[in-house]
């Protein structure tokens, strides 16, 4: 009750002390509007990137300053603006609310909640801001576990890295990003931001649902500009997501940002640029489409300890057409990022998921950040997989093969099966190490390829029951001592030797 009266007092005081001094703003008038691009007369002192206010409270963004006027994009309500409408400058650039109140929420790129609940933010950050300087950065030296064996062992990602996920439609690009986000649920200091750019509304709902069911949504923010949103919102979405992530990074947190996907982002920017009458270049993209993505991805960083040691790890996604990674946007983003995970529809259709093409996938800085234990057991894995895939194609023709090749094929087939994994079935470091140790000791060779996934699950369950301590020690230290290795092999042997009797122990 007393709280109510105190609140009443505060309200009364605020109303009584309210003093309005008339505002003097710049104004202009709308000359023409095409889709959501508006040409405005007047507004001579408008800044680049300034938010404009139209009649009816609708907002726009000034992106083109000329001598005789301003070109702007509408952020909302484009249908209500008519030629002759008044526009005024607000004097500030586009901001977005940041902070802990965003966790678990779905918002649009201008900070309005999309999940039907009220949202309050105390702090705001400009959507566009400069990337951390060279002196503020430190080299990538901590791993970011995705929980996927194929990624963590062969294409490791470090905190602060930018790793592109590239592939045709329907090859599991988003699934990899989702697995990585789900796997962060146990990391105390890590948050995730998922930027949906030009996605279907149903897809975004599904992603939110998956995260919720996996218990990872409390640490995630979803910034969504769906396919029916203005091109301007789709253009802003990744920058808004990055601004939210930067706020967390500056507090010393590690943030994983997924941009899904940058091909649609480039297309949205292209349609805006064409309507703004900017000169077009290759594939009708404007000249600054490279800078569009490079300035976004430069904002991913690992900060030095003096700056709090936070990080932003970026997982941009790019969709290719018919496997063509030499198209304009894919080559641009490949050259900006620190490596790529290349997914192939052939592998995907053959049931190998994640459908990673090991030969074309690289991680340029991740090795340095990999845990010692993983480094020890995954050394020749890439080579094994690549060699197996080459030989397997050859062996399809029914050529006579010698014994060592047959053995290599048998081994490789099982390895391929071992690397299959569902997005919600993420593995800890120790579990991944245990699987690779058991594989290295040829223990899986006796198992039929179709039973491998099940056997792997059974083995991990067996290990959890019988040598929990060793597993925890590996997870904690990130190292695999020779005695731990012996212990793991012994227990795995007991599991494979004992078969069903081992389970009853």
């Amino acid at each position: 009750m007393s709280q109510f009266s105190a609140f009443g007092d505060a309200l009364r005081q605020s109303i009584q002390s309210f003093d309005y001094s008339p505002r003097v703003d710049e104004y202009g008038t709308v000359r023409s509007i095409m889709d959501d691009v508006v040409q405005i007369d007047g507004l001579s002192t408008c800044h680049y990137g300034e938010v404009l206010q139209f009649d009816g409270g609708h907002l726009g963004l000034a992106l083109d300053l000329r001598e005789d006027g301003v070109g702007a994009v509408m952020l909302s309500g484009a249908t209500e603006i008519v030629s002759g409408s008044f526009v005024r400058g607000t004097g500030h650039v586009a901001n977005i609310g940041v902070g802990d109140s965003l966790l678990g929420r779905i918002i649009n790129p201008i900070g309005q909640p999309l999940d039907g609940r009220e949202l309050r933010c105390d702090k705001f950050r400009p959507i566009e801001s400069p990337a951390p300087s060279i002196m503020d950065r430190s080299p990538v030296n901590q791993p970011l576990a995705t929980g996927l064996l194929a990624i963590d062992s062969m294409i490791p990602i470090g905190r602060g890295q930018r790793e592109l996920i590239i592939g045709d439609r329907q090859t599991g690009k988003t699934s990899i990003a989702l697995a990585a986000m789900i796997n962060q649920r146990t990391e105390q200091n890590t948050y995730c931001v998922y930027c949906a750019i030009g996605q279907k509304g149903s897809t975004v709902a599904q992603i939110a649902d998956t995260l919720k069911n996996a218990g990872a949504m409390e640490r995630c923010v979803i910034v969504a500009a769906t396919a029916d949103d203005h091109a301007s919102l789709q253009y802003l979405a990744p920058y808004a997501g990055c601004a939210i992530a930067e706020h967390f990074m500056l507090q010393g947190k590690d943030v994983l940002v997924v941009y899904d996907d940058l091909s649609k982002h480039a297309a949205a920017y292209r349609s805006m640029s064409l309507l703004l009458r900017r000169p077009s270049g290759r594939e009708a993209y404007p000249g600054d489409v490279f800078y569009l993505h490079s300035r976004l991805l430069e904002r991913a960083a690992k900060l030095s300890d003096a700056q709090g040691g936070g990080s932003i790890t970026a997982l941009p996604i790019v969709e290719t057409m018919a496997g063509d990674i030499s198209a304009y946007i894919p080559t641009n983003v490949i050259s900006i990022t620190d490596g790529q995970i290349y997914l192939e529809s052939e592998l995907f259709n053959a049931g190998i998921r994640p459908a990673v093409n090991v030969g074309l996938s690289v991680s340029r800085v991740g090795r340095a950040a990999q845990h010692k234990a993983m480094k020890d057991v995954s050394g020749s894995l890439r080579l094994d997989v690549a060699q197996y895939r080459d030989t397997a194609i050859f062996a399809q023709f029914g050529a006579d093969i010698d014994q060592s090749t047959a053995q290599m094929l048998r081994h490789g087939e099982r390895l391929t099966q071992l690397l299959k994994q569902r997005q919600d079935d993420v593995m800890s470091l120790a579990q991944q190490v245990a699987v690779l140790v058991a594989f290295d000791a040829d223990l899986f060779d006796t198992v039929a390829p179709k039973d491998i996934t099940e056997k792997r699950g059974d083995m991990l369950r067996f290990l959890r029951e019988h040598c929990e301590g060793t597993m925890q020690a590996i997870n904690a230290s990130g190292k695999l001592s020779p005695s731990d290795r012996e212990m793991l092999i012994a227990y795995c042997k007991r599991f494979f030797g004992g078969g069903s009797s081992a389970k009853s122990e």
Partner: protein
Amino acid sequence: MSHAILRSAAVLDAKQLADVETIFSTRLKQEIKFELMLDPSLVGGFVALIDGKLYDISLAAQLAELKKNLTKIKMEGN
């Protein structure tokens, strides 16, 4: 003489208009003749548009400002 528009929430009579014009003419040290426009969305008061500058003395703007102030209130302990 400069181009000037006066958007008001209600219709102004000749005396009111003359008063407003005199105020702006003396303040801006130039002769102002307003072209009138009716805009009920302003709730009350008027908005003067003169040479690319906008003088907002409408009730709608004051209410918006008040709303902004009221939502800023934070209570201790919750």
